[in-house]
C-alpha cells in the first residue's frame, strides 16, 4: 500500500498540478515529503509554493515534511536524504514524483529506495511546453555519490550522454572529462527539433558516435545503453550522463545498477529560467512501477 509521496518543490506549474493529481489518485498517502533547494536563486522562485504547501495538499490527515537541500553542497544534501530515509519503516511504500526534481537528487533517492529494497513507483508529468532559454550557466560536473563505478587507470574513458533541448551542454562535459570517445544520444521524442547539422553542432568534438533514442522511454534508454555498455565495458571506463528529460534517469540508473562498474555523472545548471516550462500534460503521464 503506497503511503509515502516524495516530490521536489518547484515554481513550475506541473509541481502543484501533478501533486494534486496524485493525491487524488493515491488515497492512502499519509505523508508527503518535500525537498527544495535553499539557495536564494532557487528559493526566490519557489518560496510561494513552500509557504502554501498546507493549502496545496489540503488534507489534514496527511503529514507534511519539508527538507531543505543545498544546490551548492551535494554532500550535505545526500546526508539529509539519507537521514530522511532512515526514518521510514520497512513496510512503507513510495511514489517518487521526479517531474521537477534535479537529476542528482533523483539518483540519490533511487539509491536509497533500491538499497532498502522498498516498493516504489516513479511518476513523471511532462509540461505542456518549455521556454526557449531553459537552462544556462553550468557548474562543475559531479559524480553521483556511491555510484562512481570502478575505474581502472589502464582503460580510457568513454562518455555516454543523452541530450535534451540544450545540445550545447555536451561541450562542457566533453571539455571537462576529455573522454577518448563520446557517444551522444539524441532524443527523438522532443518538443524541440533535432539539430539539422550535427557536424556543425558537434564539430569541436572528436571521436564521437551519435545515436537516436526515445529518452521518454526508460526501457529503451535501458536497452540501448545496455547494448553499448556490453560492447565497451571490457576495454573502457564508462561514464553515463543524462541531460535529457528527467525520466531518462530511471533507465540510466537501472542499467548502471546492472553494470556498477559504470559511473553516474551529473552536470548541473546553476540557473533555470522562470518560464522553464508551463502547464502540465495530464494526458501523457509516465508511471514506472518497478525497476
Amino acid at each position: 500500500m503506497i503511503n509515502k509521496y516524495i516530490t521536489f518543490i518547484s515554481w513550475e506549474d506541473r509541481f502543484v498540478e501533478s501533486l494534486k493529481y496524485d493525491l487524488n489518485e493515491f488515497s492512502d498517502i499519509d505523508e508527503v515529503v518535500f525537498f527544495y533547494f535553499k539557495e536564494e536563486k532557487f528559493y526566490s522562485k519557489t518560496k510561494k509554493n513552500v509557504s502554501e504547501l498546507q493549502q496545496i495538499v489540503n488534507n489534514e490527515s496527511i503529514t507534511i515534511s519539508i527538507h531543505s537541500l543545498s544546490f551548492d553542497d551535494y554532500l550535505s544534501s545526500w546526508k539529509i536524504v539519507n537521514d530522511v530515509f532512515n526514518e521510514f519503516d520497512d513496510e512503507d511504500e513510495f511514489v517518487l514524483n521526479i517531474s521537477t526534481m534535479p537529476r542528482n537528487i533523483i539518483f540519490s533517492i533511487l539509491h536509497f529506495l533500491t538499497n532498502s529494497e522498498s516498493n516504489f513507483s516513479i511518476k513523471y508529468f511532462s509540461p505542456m511546453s518549455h521556454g526557449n532559454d531553459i537552462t544556462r550557466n553550468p557548474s562543475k560536473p559531479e559524480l553521483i555519490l556511491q555510484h562512481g563505478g570502478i575505474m581502472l587507470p589502464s582503460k580510457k574513458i568513454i562518455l555516454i550522454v543523452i541530450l535534451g533541448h540544450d545540445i550545447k551542454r555536451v561541450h562542457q562535459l566533453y571539455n571537462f572529462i576529455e573522454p577518448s570517445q563520446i557517444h551522444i544520444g539524441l532524443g527523438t521524442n522532443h518538443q524541440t527539433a533535432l539539430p539539422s547539422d550535427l557536424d556543425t553542432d558537434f564539430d569541436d568534438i572528436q571521436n564521437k558516435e551519435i545515436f537516436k533514442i526515445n529518452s521518454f522511454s526508460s526501457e529503451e534508454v535501458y536497452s540501448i545503453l545496455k547494448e553499448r555498455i556490453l560492447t565497451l565495458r571490457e576495454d573502457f571506463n564508462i561514464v553515463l550522463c543524462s541531460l535529457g528529460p528527467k525520466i531518462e534517469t530511471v533507465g540510466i540508473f537501472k542499467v548502471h545498477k546492472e553494470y556498477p562498474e559504470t559511473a553516474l555523472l551529473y552536470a548541473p545548471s546553476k540557473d533555470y529560467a522562470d518560464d522553464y516550462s508551463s502547464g502540465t500534460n495530464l494526458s501523457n503521464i509516465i508511471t514506472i512501477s518497478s525497476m
Partner: protein
Amino acid sequence: MNNNPFMHEAATNIEDSKLVDMFIDNEHSHILNSQKNIFIIGNRGSGKSMLMRYTSLPIQLKNNSIQDINNIGIYISCMTPLFMRIDQRLNDDKFQSAIVSEHMLVLTMAERFLSTFLELDESIISEEDLLLLKEEIEFYFDVNLNETRVLKDFHRWIIKNLIDTQKHLNISPSKFVSEAHTYSSLMMPLIQVFKEVSSLKKTHFMFLIDDGQMLSTTQQISLNSWISYRDTSSVSFKIAITTTDEYSFLTVQESVILENHDYITLDLERDFFSGKSTFVEFAKKIIEKRLELYNIPTRNVEDFFEVPKSFTNELSLIRKKFINGDYPEREDWEEEQRRRNASKFVRSIYFRLNSETEKANIPKLAYTGFDTLTNISTGVIRNLLVPCSIMYEKEKELKGETVDFISAKTQYETLFYESRKAWEKIDELSVKIVDCTHEHTVMLRRVLDNFGKYLQQKLLDPKGTEKKILSFTIHDLEKNQHSDKIKKVIKIGIQGGLIYTRIGPDHNGGRTMWYTPNRILWPSLNLDPVGQNGRKNFPGEQFYKMMTNDNYANTIIKEENTGYVQGELSFDK
C-alpha cells in the same frame, strides 16, 4: 587512419608509435628530463600531454632516444573519474577521509609504475633481480608472488586493492579503508625496492602527473607535501596543470610550496609568446613533419600555404612608395628612417588602402601564407592545426585525394569562417565553461569587440603612432573596485581559449600580466593578425567600462585625440 595530416587529436588518445613520429622535440623535453620538481603550465592544446607522454619510458624506448635508463618517466593521467570521487568525505573524520584520497592516488601511481615496466617489450630487469624484487615486495607488502611473474602478480595485487577501494566507497563510504596506503607506506618502499635492482641503481624516477588540476584538493595537498621534501635524488614530480588558479599549492603543514625552492615552472604558452621566432620555427617543424609523414609532395610550408604573387607584388610596391614618402604614414621622416622601419608599416598601409577602396575593402589576401597562420594561432599549436585541418579537407573536396598545396582562396575563406565561429562561440561559453554566466559572456564579447575596434582605428589612422598592438595590460587592476569582475571575465576568456597571457614589462619598468586575445578573432574585424609585441595599457576603470558599454572604443579614441590619455602604448623591446 585519417589521411588529413593536420587532424588534431588529444595527445592522450594518440598511439605511442604515432606520437613518437609526430613529436617535435625542443628544449622543453630536456628541461623535463632533469631531477627537478616541475610544474608545466598551459591551457588545452598547448602540448602539455604530448610532452609528458613523450618523456615516459615506453615512448622513450620506442624512440630509442635513451641509451641508458638513468631517467624513467612514469605517465599518470589525472583525467579520470577516480579522482572526481568525493564519497570518502561521507566519513566525518577529515583525517581518515584525506588518507583515503591519498590511498587512491598512490594506488594509481603504483599501478602506472608497474604498468610502465610491464609494457616494455624487453624487460630491463634480470631474472636474478626479479627474485630479489619478489623477496623485498613480499616482505614489505605481505603478498605472495609467483617467481615467474613477479611484476604481473604485484600489479594484480595493486589493481585488486584499487577495485576493492572503489567497491568500498560504493557500499560503505563513511567507514575508513583500514588497509589504506600512503606515499610513505606504498610508494617509498616500492621505489626503494626497485632501486635495489642492479640496472636501476642510478635511476631517477619521474612521476609525470598530467592534468594535476583534476586531483582533489586533498590529493593536491598530499602531492605538494611530497614535493616539499625537496630530496629529488631518486624521485621527482612533473605536474602538468592548466593554470595556477586551478591548483592548490598548499601542503599538509598548511605552508605553500615555493617556486625556485621546491619546484620550477615551465610555462608552455608564455615561452612561445616571448619569442615569436622560436614559435614560428617550432610550428614550421611540426607542419613540415606532418607533410613528410603523410607523404605530401610539397614539404616546404611556405610553398604549401600559397601566397599569391599579386599580393607580394602589391606589398613590394607599397614598400617602395612608403620609403619614397608617397603615403601620409611617416611622411615627416627621413627616407633612410622609413627604409629601416618599412616592415612595420607596409601591411598596415595595405589594410588602410583596402579600407578606402570602395569595391575591395576586405583585405582577403592578407590572410594567406604560413606566417599569417602562425600569427593567427597566437602561439598555440592546436590553434594552428585546427584551421590547417579544415583547409586540407576543403582543398581535398576541390582537388580530389592529392592535396599538394592550399590555395589562397581556401586559406582566407577558412580563416574568415573560423573567425566568425570564434565570435559566435563566445555566447556558448555559458553552457560550456563551469561557473560562466550569460552576463560574463556578454561582458567578454564587449571587451573583445571594444579592443578590436580600438585596434581597427589605430591600424587605419595614417597618423597613428603604433599600428600593430595585439595585447593589452590593465593598470592598477588590484586597486580597482571591479577587480573581481574583471578577473572573472578574463579568466573565462582564458578558459574559452579567447585570451592568452604572459608576464611582460609594465609601464613602470616592473613586470605585469599581458593579455593577448586569440588572433583568430581579428579577420572578422578586418584586422591584421600579424603583429608586434606591443600592448595597450588600460586603467582598470576604463577596462571595466569596455566590459559594460558597447562601442566604448570610440570614447577611448576620442579621449586620446583630445589629449586626455589615461592609458598608454608601449612595446616589448
